[in-house]
């Protein structure tokens, strides 16, 4: 054991979901692959949704996902919690219930004390317990950079799967966590973020999307996704592509960390944000009033971001109210699904 305080973010190059492979590059690797076919595969790679869904019987389907990344915060326990919350989120975004999980670990045992790994896993376990998930195993490899995450399996009724692809005209879009965590993670790495802000962001990133998912069950929700590495606009673009509809976003209503706005203006923006912008920028029309820094935040890769929920217009206000009653204070209606212009995102 050592008493030296190790700043985990200083041991790695990328931070959290900001370390994700550029979206265009991934498409290149996957496009045209010959994939095995199975009639029971309800949601697979071809649909590129939050998680895969495989039908077991008429009333049970498996939901599977996997997420891992390098640390975006310095504290090992918090890193474990955030990585677990982030991995579990994909199951919640599909409307599923997570049940089992396996640890995925890459660990530099020559440079980091093994007690750090134990603390990370303890953090992960705390979130699994909160989610009612059991840890069934895992796999650990020696690596030059630390990475941690989970493979999660859950279940869902085959008729109640919430994909990204079912936007209806008039639907309101609701976001449940503030954006800006990629920029703030960069500021944390740079030693610029104060402890109070760091604590606030850690709390948000380690908060499960469980309450939001349970709350939306009672409402007429047509589509849902969670906001992670591709940023708010990147994930929204995935909902809009092939929907036959467009989306109008009111940027002033999007919950944001105002500190991140200031750092965006200073150029503390993760490379992932530029990748996201290059990949999806052509889908998006920004109004003249939307400042550069706000645009940057909307492309900022999020770690363990909130759910983006498309709900029937008549129920939108009630859903926001219900989310707030569950302590999801920043939940807000951030946009609307429109007929025209088709498959474009207008940000005002």
């Amino acid at each position, binding site marked *: 054991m050592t008493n030296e305080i190790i700043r985990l973010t200083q041991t790695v190059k990328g931070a959290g979901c900001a370390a994700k492979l550029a979206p265009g590059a991934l498409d290149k690797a996957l496009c045209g692959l010959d994939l095995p076919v199975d009639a029971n595969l309800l949601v697979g790679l071809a649909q590129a949704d939050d998680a895969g869904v495989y039908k077991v019987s008429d009333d049970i389907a498996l939901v599977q996902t996997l997420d891992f990344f390098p640390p975006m915060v310095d504290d090992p326990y918090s890193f474990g919690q955030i990585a677990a919350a982030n991995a579990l989120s994909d199951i919640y975004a599909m409307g599923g219930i997570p049940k089992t999980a396996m640890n995925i670990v890459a660990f530099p045992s020559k440079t980091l004390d093994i007690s750090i790994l134990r603390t990370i896993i303890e953090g992960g376990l705390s979130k699994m317990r909160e989610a009612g998930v059991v840890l069934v195993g895992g796999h650990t490899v020696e690596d030059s950079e630390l990475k941690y995450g989970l493979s999660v399996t859950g279940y869902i009724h085959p008729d109640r799967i919430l994909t990204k692809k079912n936007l209806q005209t008039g639907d309101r879009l609701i976001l449940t966590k503030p954006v800006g965590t990629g920029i703030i993670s960069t500021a944390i790495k740079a030693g*610029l973020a104060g402890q109070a*802000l760091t604590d606030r962001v850690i709390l948000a990133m380690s908060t499960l999307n469980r309450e939001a998912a349970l709350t939306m069950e009672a409402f007429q929700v047509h589509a849902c996704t969670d906001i992670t590495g591709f940023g708010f606009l990147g994930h929204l673009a995935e909902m809009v592509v092939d929907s036959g509809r467009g989306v109008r976003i009111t940027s002033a209503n999007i919950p944001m960390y105002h500190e991140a706005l*200031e750092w965006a203006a*200073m150029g503390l923006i993760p490379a992932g944000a530029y990748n996201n912008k290059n990949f999806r920028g052509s889908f998006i029309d920004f109004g003249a009033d939307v400042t550069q820094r706000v645009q940057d935040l909307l492309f900022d890769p999020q770690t363990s971001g909130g759910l983006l929920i498309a709900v029937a217009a008549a129920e939108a206000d009630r859903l926001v109210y219900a989310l707030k009653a569950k302590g999801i204070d920043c939940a807000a209606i951030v946009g609307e699904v429109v007929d025209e212009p088709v498959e474009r995102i207008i940000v005002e």
Partner: protein
Amino acid sequence: MRKELDCRGMECPAPVLHVRNELEKETPAAITVLVDNEAARQNVGRFLEHMNYKVNSEIMGGEFRLVGTRADGTVSLEMPSPAPSAKVLEPGTKKIMVFVTSDHMGHGDDGLGDMLMFNFLKTLKEMGPNLWRVVFVNSGVSFTAEGSEAVPVLQELAGEGVQVMACGACLAYFHILDKMQVGEVTNMLDIVTGMQLAESVITV
């Protein structure tokens, strides 16, 4: 004076921090920065513009050469200071938070104290753009409520972009939550965070 910095091989946020450290030492009339990735090019460009430099960038092979020229060669720039610096403002402005903990100023005669405090609030606008936020707690919250002659004064401040805030628990304690006429309701977390974000906190 010209300055050249080689930030090739660095990943974000390192190039911005490198340039920032350099500008903290001195503020050259022109600065050239070499970077080798697109994110670094954009981020350093943004930072230099934020610091009042006009930026030109050229591509040379897979590398970028950014040339920043100070708009005004004589003005020295306020640098955003290091941690805990969520307080990055436009160059030249400070971020002052005024924390009003009572409905009168000082000890002695309360009538005199009332008059002094009102006068203080009226004079606050002289701080100009440096005045960032005025937060009222305890009996100080009465200034934001119906019946206080300070309401129009605070409305004027709010109109100029100053954040006027009153402690919600205090308003409730004095039963004037529904009588609030200016500013927004705040809580202890926001107050504490605000104190950290502010460059200086003045308590009266």
